């Protein structure tokens, strides 16, 4: 009799907890801050129209909304969204390496936000792949089915996307646990971080280069100045400065937009951190330039440099690899954070150029009818970007992304004042 009432009591308690949790989630779902801001209006419009366009794409097929053809099976949904997007997400594995493996504590304050960005980039940009697949529901086939294409580079890349997303989620999950106030869970996931980091870096090395290796199968279709056996290595090395320059760009924005959320440590060290990241960029850019020169010598296509495609190639190498090296160098010498930020934009542009060159522009450079994206392809790409930004903002406004867990933070030299902690926990934007 007694036991029964005990049971019902426990059940009632559990039910209560669940209800509380649901209420908490529901309240967190509500937008914080002003709704009718210019950003919201513009991005909201893009998203609404974009969703309609995506619906049309699934109703009528890819041909109705894209400029893809039998000649050009891959357009910007692959070349930009997936291939470039994933390169930009590289910042997460580079920073986790620097902080969790090399123990450079200086960069600790930006790890969380970078991992969050990386994770969302995979969810949205790699996720944009589903829009491009003819039969997206069959995407599970190489994961669960009896259809393992083991000799396919794409098979490898698909698996690694999935596993890496899990790693990044584990790396970020302490922030989620703190948001939910699940102290025990936080301890558990925090212990898994190092493992996730090591596995994550390994996976990143392989699929960043794997994205390049995809194109190894098209030797006769990619312009000889861009095709080389080095493509995988080049993709990997460029993902380092792609990721780092993206981290600089993001922190430039987040510093302005989420100013009140940023912890003291980060605010104090922000400039130092950016200058340090710029040094990392230079190193990777330099290695990249070196590899590019070796590749050119190795390939022996000097004569092609004096063709229109050759000039285009030089624009990419001189304008967007060599010049950023120089600019970053100047910025570091003069300790100019502004110039670092500007150069990061420039570098990122160069990465976009390179990925589009390999996947679209230098691909079938000889074709009589060239591919260029339709306005719908561009619109849908913008939609994906806007959705990512919305989710990013939602998370940043709720979870402790820019500050360490108070417990952990106490251990650091710079103790964040309690008032500050309270503020980020309970403030809206």
């Amino acid at each position, binding site marked *: 009799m007694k036991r029964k009432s005990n049971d019902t009591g426990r059940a009632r308690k559990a039910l209560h907890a669940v209800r509380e949790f649901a209420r908490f989630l529901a309240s967190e779902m509500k937008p914080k801050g002003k709704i009718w801001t210019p950003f919201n209006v513009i991005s909201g419009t893009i998203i609404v129209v974009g969703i309609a366009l995506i619906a049309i794409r699934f109703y009528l*097929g890819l041909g*109705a909304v*894209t400029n893809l053809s039998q000649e050009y*099976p891959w357009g910007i949904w692959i070349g930009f969204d997936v291939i470039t997007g994933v390169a930009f997400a590289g910042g997460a594995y580079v920073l986790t390496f620097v902080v969790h493996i090399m123990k450079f504590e200086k960069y600790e304050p930006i790890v969380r936000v970078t991992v969050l960005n990386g994770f969302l980039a995979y969810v949205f940009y790699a996720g944009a792949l589903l829009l491009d*697949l003819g*039969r997206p529901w069959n995407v599970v*086939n190489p994961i669960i089915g009896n259809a393992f294409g083991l*000799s396919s580079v794409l098979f*490898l890349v698909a698996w690694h996307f999935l596993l890496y997303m899990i790693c990044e989620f584990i790396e970020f999950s302490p922030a989620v646990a703190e948001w939910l106030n699940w102290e025990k869970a936080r301890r558990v996931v925090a212990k898994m971080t190092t493992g996730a980091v090591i596995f994550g870096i390994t996976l990143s090395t392989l699929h960043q280069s794997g994205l390049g290796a995809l194109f190894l*199968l098209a030797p006769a279709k990619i312009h000889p100045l861009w095709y080389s056996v080095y493509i995988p290595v080049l993709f990997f090395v460029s993902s380092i400065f792609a990721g780092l320059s993206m981290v600089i760009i993001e922190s430039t924005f987040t510093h302005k937009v989420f100013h009140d959320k940023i912890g003291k440590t980060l605010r104090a060290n922000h400039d130092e951190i950016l200058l340090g990241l710029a040094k990392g960029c230079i190193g990777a850019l330099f290695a990249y330039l070196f590899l590019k020169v070796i590749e050119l010598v190795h390939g022996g296509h000097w004569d092609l440099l004096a063709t229109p495609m050759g000039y285009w190639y030089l624009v990419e190498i001189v304008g967007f690899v060599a010049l950023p090296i120089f600019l970053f160098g100047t910025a570091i010498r003069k300790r100019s954070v502004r110039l670092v930020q500007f150069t990061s934009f420039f570098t990122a542009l160069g990465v976009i150029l390179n990925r589009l060159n390999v996947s679209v522009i230098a691909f079938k450079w000889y074709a009589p009818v060239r591919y260029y994206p339709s306005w719908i392809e561009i619109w849908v790409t913008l939609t994906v970007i806007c959705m990512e930004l919305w989710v990013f903002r939602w998370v940043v406004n709720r979870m402790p992304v820019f500050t360490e867990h108070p417990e952990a933070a106490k251990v650091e030299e710079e103790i964040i004042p309690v008032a500050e902690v309270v503020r980020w926990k309970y403030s809206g934007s």
Partner: protein
Amino acid sequence: MSVNRRDFLKLAGVTGCSLLAGAPRRSEAAMTSIEFYGMLIDTTKCIGCRSCEEACNEQNGLPKPEVSFSSESVFETKRDTSPGAFTVLNRFSNGKNPDNPVFVRRQCLHCCQPACASACLTRAMQKTVEGPVIYNKDRCMGCRYCMIACPFDIPKFEYSSPLPYIRKCIFCYDRLKAGERPACVEACPEGASIFGTRRELLEIARTRIYENPDRYVHRIYGEHEVGGTGTMYLSAVPFEELGFRNDVGTTPYPEHTTGFLYGVPLVFVLWPSILIGLSYLAENGNKERNHEEEE
């Protein structure tokens, strides 16, 4: 040296998690093959009647074309295969003999080590032990990587359908298993396309060149291209004048990615150990530094 490089790499591959890592494999067919069947197309014999196109259309239940198969008007432009036509005939002017244009049939070459199959992550494209490269539509996810990879741009995608498939010639695989020849070969009134094992066909082709040295260019297209193809061609004029690619090389396409795939298990073994080592060193370094600072 008792362990050569390949064995070492294989060993490393087994140590590494081979599922995650993927493994470069020759197509199973290439290893266990009895003997691939193929087709020899002698362009000097083709009269441009388009019977092969018609037979293919019927065999595969493809939509009826706007222009009937007996019309020659289609030759005014160069056509490509499409989701609705797995084989198309094109007319080329003949430099040697202007009154006698050359007709060339374009369709899947059924490569001995096909790029499309090595690209496919769901094994929807598959090389069979009999030779044909077939397509299993239930597995395909429509990623179109096979189209990127195929050196001859053969797989075609149904862009206008919300439920699209890849379409291409499958060498009438069902007929082959029933002991019949492909429909196009059956339909050819001139014997311009003939069917047989690849070895037989190569012998026939060489004999023809040997016996008529002035009639043919001394080359069999498909003997060495991309590591050998199942469908091969003979011609009176240089192949590049007939729209054939000369830049595809003789390396089997899957080998372009084997180097990368061999590296994968190595990274899987080496990276984590290096990373753990580094992190250990860095931690100790930090500790020492802190220690010194305290003192």
